[in-house]
């Protein structure tokens, strides 16, 4: 069983943290991963920076721009992760846009991920049907879980289809927005969380976008298996440093 699937079976609400690899400094990647594990998070999303992150708000955009300025590349990230499985047990997911993966070669990328002990991928601009027709068997050959997004606008029928081709969790985007644009959830969102929860899908849901403190974490996980924090974490390390990550994690739960 894949580490993500194992983690999803634990009887607790999961906290997943996203960070942009190469930010704040080029070589912070492994330190951040190790310290997040020590701080008690459940899952980590490693952002492969992209020049044109369409689905991201200003915070993650700025961290991506800086990471690229720092010299981050796919090859360098893979090198940094060379020995990561000697020290880290948590499920690790790479989140990145499709073009850098396409240029590396999808099969080569997946192969490398397996070698390094990466458990899954989130590629927001790889559409469900293209994945299903062209890449599903490659991902499966290398034991990688591909995570799909749903939003408040996604139709019931499409959610069921996405559920049918998922084999880990469904990334439930909290609202119709880019990353980081939210402060607190209103009735609309709670209604949406509940609607999805009531669908009794095969795959558990993890909520992302707009989770930034203890209150939003609790609201999201009232209905979902877990929550993902990205922009708020990037903002924390921007305003502070990467020295005391447990302070951030404790502020969430």
């Amino acid at each position, binding site marked *: 069983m894949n580490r993500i699937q194992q983690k999803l079976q634990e009887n607790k609400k999961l906290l997943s943290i996203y960070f942009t690899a190469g930010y704040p400094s080029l070589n912070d990647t492994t330190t951040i991963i190790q310290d997040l594990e020590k701080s008690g998070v459940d899952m980590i999303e490693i952002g492969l920076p992209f020049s044109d992150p369409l689905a991201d708000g200003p915070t993650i955009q700025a961290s991506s721009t800086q990471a690229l300025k720092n010299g981050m590349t796919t090859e360098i990230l893979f090198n940094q992760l060379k020995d990561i499985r000697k020290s880290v047990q948590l499920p690790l997911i790479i989140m990145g846009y499709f073009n850098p993966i*396409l240029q*590396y070669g999808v099969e080569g990328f997946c192969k490398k991920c397996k070698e390094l002990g990466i458990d899954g991928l989130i590629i927001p601009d790889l559409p469900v049907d293209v994945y299903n027709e062209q890449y599903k068997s490659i991902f499966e050959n290398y034991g990688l879980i591909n995570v799909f997004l749903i939003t408040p606008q*996604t139709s019931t029928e499409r959610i069921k289809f996405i559920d049918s081709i998922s084999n880990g969790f469904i990334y439930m985007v909290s609202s119709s927005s880019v990353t980081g644009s939210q402060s607190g959830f209103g009735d609309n969102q709670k209604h949406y969380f509940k609607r999805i929860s009531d669908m009794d899908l095969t795959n558990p849901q993890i909520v992302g976008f707009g989770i930034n403190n203890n209150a939003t974490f609790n609201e999201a996980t009232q209905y979902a298996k877990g929550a993902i924090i990205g922009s708020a974490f990037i903002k924390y390390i921007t305003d502070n440093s990467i020295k005391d990550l447990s302070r951030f994690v404790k502020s969430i739960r």
Partner: protein
Amino acid sequence: MSYNVNEKGYYGEFGGAYIPEMLYPNVEELRQNYLKIMAEPSFKKEFDQLLKDYVGRPSPLYFAKRLSEKYKTNIYLKREDLNHTGAHKINNTIGQILMAKRLGKNRIIAETGAGQHGVATATVCALMGLECIVYMGEIDIARQAPNVARMKMLGATVVPALSGSKTLKDATNEAIRDWINNPVDTHYIIGSAIGPHPYPDMVTRFQSIISEEIKWQLKEHIGKENPDYVVACIGGGSNAAGTYYHFLDNVNVNIIAVEAAGLGIDSGESAATSVLGKEGIIHGCKTLLMQTKDGQITEPYSISAGLDYPGVGPMHAHLSITGRAEFMSITDNDAMKAGLELCQLEGIIPAIETAHALAIFEHKKFKKEDVVVVSLSGRGDKDLNTYIDYFKL
């Protein structure tokens, strides 16, 4: 071979809709409805009427006698510069605003580089009384002040794109992000034959009026509908797509696509995507684009803001790869010279984008009997400052 889009939204291997799930409902709604709506008699009637009474179509097909004499061939200019707002861009914005209304949208967003598409969008929004927000790179706002003022006078809100390189590519990113944030009431009017399917096809169809008119106009001029060559400059490729459309399947009509070489193909300051680009994904479609080995999109350069785009529409990527079109690239200097030459030989001041298409006559010899139709995509008023600086006028 087909050069048109297939039912899955691809031109050969290019095209598709590589969009985040957040955009899926909007793009899908458009995909399911655009052909149906365009085929409605009431839509056609309103579109044609506006093109005639408001835009001023048909635009003339003008035999450029002195230019033809100089290059010893027969050059016809398709006068899109005479359209309302001064370029072909308005053909598309008229079509899309009517589409948006039928889809029940009341908020319009657009991206713009030089400001031509922004002005054309602000114009149709004023015409229809719809809210209009135009994203424009902070750097472009500074260098295209008159068009920024025009958009404001027309009632649009111009929002600076502050991310990345602060030019057209980033303005497009911001418009897409706006659409993600406003998924219900908003229509995104893309300004070229780019973006996720069905945009390249929809924009091409709205612009295809250009080649539809060329056919009957040429027949009036010389008794036959098909020229030997059609020529257009390519930024994203909308005036080119419209100019080629009705000739795509007739291989006796040669297609020439003109890209901006900037300071030269090998200078590192260029926008010649077909030469410097590689297959990849930009703004929701698979096409040729300029990028690093690592798949990061790079900044192009051209003296003309309208050609300063790191990708090319998927139809043109296909025309390039299959060899159906001949791609040429023209430097800043050659384009500026050709622009001035048209002023002096024909009394027409062309947009600098268009001047790239005109510059091919210095580089390619045509036969005396050849009939060459060039898309005169826009007028040069917006470029006066660039002309003034360049020629020290």
